[in-house]
């Protein structure tokens, strides 16, 4: 089986990234890591190779620093890596990246293309479906379990739906699958392969080598701004609180301190009181379709 894995390098978002909003510049000391879901995609590819044989090719579109991400995934055990770069890519969005990747992947005629389902920094997951479209492949996104039968050229996948449900999808090969981070646990690379990966040559392709013009990006960035406080729905206000306290709760999103009275008493008393509250708040008895406060 020939498997292509798309790898992206992302800004490590812990600690939070501080942007200078006057210049819209990112701080220079950013820490870049392999996008976690892409690492899982690499792991999944390596497991498939171990079981069915074949080749794992990594591909990444981005500035030269991105080769570090490729080397990290090479060290996990991939066979080779391709790097694509052109300065025009800097302004582009997922659609542009997908077009470039498609151009580089198509001549490889892989049986399977694996991606991470979303990136840590942007979190949009725009590339995999667009890439599948440009390659003319069926797609299965948000995959938590993958079974491949190379002999029949078929795959079966569990795809993440809302609230823990899974859709069971079958497809023929070739196909594109984007994986969720829960699909596997990544291996630690062996020291020997880290050393090898550090020296392994990586081909860099530009538009010329790919034989295309830089594609237009349909969307333009117009503004970067500090986040607004999350317009979070507030809980039903506790009428025993003072008006000031209630306003403060309304105004503060997220980790608002709540004025809680601690319940004290015997375990039995406390249990009776809490069971009553859980019932009142519709958490009990549990209702699989609609737990909790919805519907008020």
């Amino acid at each position: 089986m020939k498997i292509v894995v798309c790898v992206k390098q992302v800004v490590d978002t812990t600690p939070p990234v501080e942007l200078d909003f006057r210049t819209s510049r990112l701080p220079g000391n950013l820490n870049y890591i392999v996008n976690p879901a892409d690492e899982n995609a690499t792991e999944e590819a390596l497991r498939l190779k171990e079981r069915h044989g074949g080749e794992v090719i990594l591909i990444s579109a981005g500035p030269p620093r991105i080769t570090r991400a490729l080397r990290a995934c090479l060290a996990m055990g991939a066979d080779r890596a391709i790097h694509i770069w052109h300065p025009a890519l800097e302004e582009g969005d997922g659609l542009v990246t997908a077009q470039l990747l498609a151009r580089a992947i198509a001549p490889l005629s892989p049986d399977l293309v694996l991606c991470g389902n979303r990136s840590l920094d942007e979190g949009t997951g725009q590339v995999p479906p667009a890439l599948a479209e440009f390659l003319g492949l069926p797609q299965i996104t948000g995959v938590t379990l993958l079974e491949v039968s190379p002999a029949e050229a078929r795959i079966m996948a569990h795809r993440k739906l809302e609230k823990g449900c899974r859709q069971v999808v079958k497809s023929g090969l070739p196909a594109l699958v984007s994986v969720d981070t829960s699909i596997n646990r990544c291996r630690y690379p062996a020291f020997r392969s880290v050393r090898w990966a550090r020296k392994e040559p990586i081909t860099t392709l530009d538009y010329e080598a790919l034989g295309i013009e830089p594609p237009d990006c349909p969307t333009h960035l117009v503004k970067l701004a500090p986040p607004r406080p999350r317009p979070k729905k507030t809980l039903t206000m506790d009428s025993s609180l003072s008006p000031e306290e209630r306003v403060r709760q309304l105004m503060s999103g997220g980790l608002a301190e709540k004025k809680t009275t601690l319940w004290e008493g015997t375990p039995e008393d406390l249990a009776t009181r809490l069971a009553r509250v859980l019932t009142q708040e519709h958490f009990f008895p549990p209702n699989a379709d609609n737990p909790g406060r919805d519907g008020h």
Partner: protein
Amino acid sequence: MGSRDLWVLAEHSGGAWQEVTLELLGEAKRLAPLVRGKVIALLLGKEVSAVAADLAEYGADTVYVVEHPVLETYITEAYTSILHGLITREKPEVLLLGATSLGRDLASRLAARLKSGLVAECVALGVNSQGLLEMTRAAYGGSVYATRICPEARPQIVTVCPGVIGKEKPDKRRRAEVIELKVDIDPDSFQTQIAGVIPADPKTIDISEADVLVACGRGLGSKEKLTLIQELADALQAAVGGSRVAIDNGWLPAERQIGLTGKTVSAKLIIACGISGASQFMAGIKDCQFVIPVNTDRAAPIFKIADVGILADMHKFLPSLISQLGRRT
């Protein structure tokens, strides 16, 4: 020239609307006069025309209904081909989708086929002085909001995160024109097939997806005591999570860790037993709605964000609570 209409892809499954569909309709109704268009809801499904009228109450002026047996569940190929056909024919100005498992899968594929612009996972929408949609989403893990426009390509495609806009009260008097559309689809030509849906199991559900959570920390004391946590979780059909201490001690597997280096959870209810509330743990539960700590230390920081704080020894309190709940069924 295209129309100036705003299309909203409606999601209806298991006899209910996706909340975000109703949120999007309200948002489209608000934006419609600024874009000078109408709100058109698209409803694809097996037998869905009966519920189409609901969409009017939330803001749709017109509902396009497409019915076909293969549309019973979402399938990328069918949705992409139907929407691509309708959009190239009617040329709407805007297409809004929820950032759901469906919207995420479809929007980007469709944008690629239409060679149009997509801004995914938006948290706010506006319209600028030229009538262009301003689409704002979080970047760099949420520390920056980036606003983009799509000046030329049409439609302007957006996915919007569920739960950020909030839905409006339905207006029972609003009516919409319901138009049934016939489409040609040949399921035999599809390369993918849907083999079914596996319902969520509280025991295996990813904690980040769980609506109800019971979490434990150092106060649990030993792995044997986990049965207490599991019994409460069973009674509430909750998933089990823990602080890093619970994971480091080998009481729970790593994928159940809540917090900065674990997962962010957004449960409607979390009962946190024997957890002090270190900042790294709190970072993981900031999106939870109803927080109930059980702790012996009245100074434990977790009590600061409690809705109900239980000052008690969890090993005495939890058995009482479990038997109380047992008596109530």
